[in-house]
């Protein structure tokens, strides 16, 4: 029953771009992309319980690494992609090593990730190799071998593929001993240590994985929009977006970030329509974020396991 539903959903996702206008294909692409970077947050924030307020640091490192290699050193972006991914993993390992060795937990870890993202933003804003606040422009040359796209269909399928990979990683976490150790750390760090789990090593590992995933998303974003600047790459908006979709959908669940991303996209489209009815609401983006902030509070207050728990309850 469950497998049949999943197969039907996958089939629908595959034929969707063949049936709808271009604008809706892009909406679908954004939905899967946000689910992907949300899943990168979920791996460390949801499964391992290490709430981060600064995941944009990995996103930005990925976006800037591939863009600098491509623009300044002439690399093919496809080749730069794995390097950017590895770089995100490296930064994840570094931040985890420093923070967890100092014994930071809970809110303090969340705040220090925010500060790291801020340091990267300021450096990117002033350094020469990132072109400072001007940002970096990737020259348009929309051939697929150049990691650029002439139609919205190609990035849609690429985002869908990324999303499926991230779902597979999350599924693996629910099945593997590594995932079980992460959940043990999330539920009670001291008890996990007493059971013989190397808490520090596991936390460094999971942030490495999460950072690498998020950086891969950064490269995809840069190649899709052909432009990045320090605020897009390292600003708090991306960090909050990843946290929100995961918390709303269900932290520590396989489908949480995807459900949250579908909810966010739906709210975005609804507020866009509301804005066309009430012209006073010129700014659509803040309105949807106001709704989303309220949802975050309500979810934490009333539904701590997110929307995913509603589905689970029905199945049980």
């Amino acid at each position, binding site marked *: 029953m469950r497998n049949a539903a999943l197969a039907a959903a996958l089939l629908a996702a595959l034929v969707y771009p063949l049936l709808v206008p271009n604008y809706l294909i892009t909406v679908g692409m954004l939905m899967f992309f946000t689910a992907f970077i949300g899943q990168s947050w979920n791996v460390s924030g949801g499964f391992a319980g290490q709430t981060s307020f600064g995941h944009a640091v990995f996103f930005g490192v990925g976006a800037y690494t591939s863009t600098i290699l491509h623009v300044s050193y002439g690399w093919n972006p496809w080749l730069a992609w794995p390097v950017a991914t590895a770089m995100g993993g490296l930064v994840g390992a570094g931040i985890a090593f420093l923070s967890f060795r100092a014994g930071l937990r*809970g809110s303090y870890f969340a705040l220090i990730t925010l*500060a790291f993202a801020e340091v990267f933003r300021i450096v990117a804003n*002033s350094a020469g190799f990132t072109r400072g606040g001007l940002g970096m422009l990737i020259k348009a040359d929309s051939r697929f071998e150049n990691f650029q796209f002439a139609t919205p269909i190609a990035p849609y399928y690429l985002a869908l593929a990324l999303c499926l990979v991230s779902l597979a990683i999350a599924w693996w976490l629910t099945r593997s001993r590594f995932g079980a150790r992460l959940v043990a750390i999330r539920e009670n760090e001291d008890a996990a240590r007493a059971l013989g789990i190397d808490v520090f090593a596991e936390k460094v590992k999971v942030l490495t994985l999460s950072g690498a995933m998020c950086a891969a998303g950064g490269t995809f974003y840069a190649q899709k929009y052909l432009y990045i600047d320090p605020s897009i790459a390292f600003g*708090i908006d991306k960090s909050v977006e990843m946290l929100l979709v995961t*918390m709303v959908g269900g932290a520590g669940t396989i489908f949480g970030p995807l459900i949250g991303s579908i909810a966010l996209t739906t709210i975005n489209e609804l507020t866009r329509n509301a804005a066309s009815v009430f012209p006073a609401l010129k700014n659509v983006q803040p309105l949807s*974020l106001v709704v989303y*902030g309220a949802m975050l509070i309500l979810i934490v207050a009333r539904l701590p396991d997110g929307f995913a728990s509603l589905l689970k309850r029905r199945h049980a």
Partner: protein
Amino acid sequence: MLDPQIILAGVLNGLLAGGIYVLVAVGLTLIYGVLHIINFAHGSLLMLAMYAVFFLWKLSGVDPYVALPIVTAGAFAIGFVLYRGVIGRWSHGKDENILLITLGVSIIADNGALLFFGGDTETIDVPYAGKIIELGAAFLPLPKVISCAAAIAICLGLGLFMARSDTGKAIRAVAKERQGARLVGIDVEHIFAVSYGIGIACLGAAACLLMPTFYVTPQSGYAFVLVAFTTVVLGGMGSFVGAAVGGFLIGITESIGGLLLGEQLGQIGISLIFILILLLRPTGLFGARA
């Protein structure tokens, strides 16, 4: 190397800015010390208070310094209600829940401000804005001197209130030993809400003192939240003396950082201090061992 006179001027200007940081940080450290929660909405609530000051001035011409009692009282009421209605009620007493709920409050505040007030930078023109006090090589803007003095006076007044009044004593009792306080008949939930209210009232006062020389945008909250946390972490979470020393140190760091590294890169000092303190000495300068 820079002229020592210019450095001295930088230090003096930093101290003046630091006075207001002290006030912001005292509010944050009070909330942490009593409720043991991280109030991530601190910067956003300051931003809203700054807009309140701006609109009072724009719509009815109220001078920011005259608005101080009104905005402070209003901020207290909002803080009290916010704690009673949302934060205290829905967090189920879990540390990370409170962090996420206050994050939700700040998302709503920031984007609500963008939605209703627009993204423009707003400033207040007061007739005394250009007045300068000369002190050696340092030119100190009069409103900054007034604001710093007022911020220090308010902090001292708050200290006196905490030391002498019954409410102040109850707050300190709850901060030290919440179970014991409950046993001797203190309404702990009420004290939590009052403490949160006082913390936010400090923001109301700080907003009035900031506006004559500063500007406000919907992003101001985010700009201030790291400064406030750095100040508090530097001084030691929950420590009043720490918040005071931290505020002045941060003011000087910002001013000297701007002189040496330029306006853009100068901001990096605050984030670096925050990271280094958390990594190397998480109890700060004056904090007790957690």
